[in-house]
């Protein structure tokens, strides 16, 4: 996430209060911000609120940005905070996870696998929604933005080891449930 020269000049123009620069900065980052907001919240209206809050905070505080960390990391931190501020939607968790894992475990030929996996895809969104906020934002930043472990560590303020362990935990939880279901079926 190296600051490009164009970004640098736009940021400096924003810091001078030039209104066109705010628009340019918005255009440059709107899709990234909105994607994180939407993939985190799963709701377009909530995502718009999150994106709005992020940009308003960005515009209000850009004068304080001194480039100690990368601009994108700084921006992602604003998005993450705005996401956490949104109320977590309450949804039923366990039945969806059980359905998901049961489908994942189902044996069969490739045609049936394809069918089952198509069904699983439909459930995956619900599984993501039901992850705890810290795990959900990690998954969203990793898979929607393609951030590296180092970049994730910078945004979330922890070590790369912690990031690796947290990501592994998200996957492992699912695998553990899968094995439990397999044992139950075989036993």
């Amino acid at each position, binding site marked *: 996430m190296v600051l490009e020269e164009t970004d640098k000049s736009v940021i400096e123009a924003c810091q001078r209060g030039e209104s066109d620069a705010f*628009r340019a900065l918005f255009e440059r980052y*709107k899709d990234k911000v909105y994607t994180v907001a939407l993939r985190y919240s799963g709701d377009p209206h909530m995502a718009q609120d999150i*994106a709005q809050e992020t940009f308003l905070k960005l515009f209000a505080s850009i004068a304080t940005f001194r480039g100690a960390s990368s601009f994108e990391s700084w921006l992602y931190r604003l998005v993450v905070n705005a996401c956490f501020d949104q109320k977590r939607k309450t949804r039923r968790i366990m039945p969806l996870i059980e359905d998901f894992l049961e489908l994942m475990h189902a044996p069969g030929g490739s045609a049936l*696998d394809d069918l089952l996996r198509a069904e699983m895809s439909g459930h*995956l969104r619900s599984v993501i929604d039901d992850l705890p906020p810290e795990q959900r934002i990690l998954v969203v930043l990793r*898979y929607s933005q393609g951030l590296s472990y180092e970049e994730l560590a910078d945004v979330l303020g922890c070590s790369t080891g912690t990031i690796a362990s947290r990501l592994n935990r998200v996957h492992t939880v*699912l695998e553990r449930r899968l094995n439990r279901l397999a044992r139950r079926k075989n036993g």
Partner: protein
Amino acid sequence: MDSPRQWLEMELTRQLRPVSAPEFLWNRIHEKHSVRGALPTGWVLWPVLALLMIFASGDLVWQMARSRGTLRHLAQVSGRQLRIVTSATPACDFWSSDPEEIRNWVKTKGNMDVDVPAPRAGNDSLVGVKLVRAHGKMVAAMAYRAGDGEGALLVSDLHAACLTCHVKALGQM
């Protein structure tokens, strides 16, 4: 055939793929940005400062919160705003009897710094706080228990008011 984990990672990448922001997003942000930029800071802070001064001057506000059957404004808060707070909010977002904890929570979640007053009478207590949006403005409703009744102190970035809530359960605050 991919392993379950490989499939999961591919599917996560597919389902969380980037999307385009809606075209109208800039208008929303620009409108809010212009409004926030146009607000003089002094006018935003005055109602809160006035409220704190009243608290500093004695028990007046607390006594108001304890009085039943009345709705008393310290500053302008529209009836609709009050209805939103008193009828549409299911429970406190943050439960605590510690004014400092509530202050920190409101600061973090509501971006407002309010010197939360502690109840003075021994059997009265602070219960918690809820943040709601009324007309696009953040309002912090701080719940107090006073004897057998409950009261809520409302503070927004533009307005402050104290009212009594005629409810038995805080869940209806």
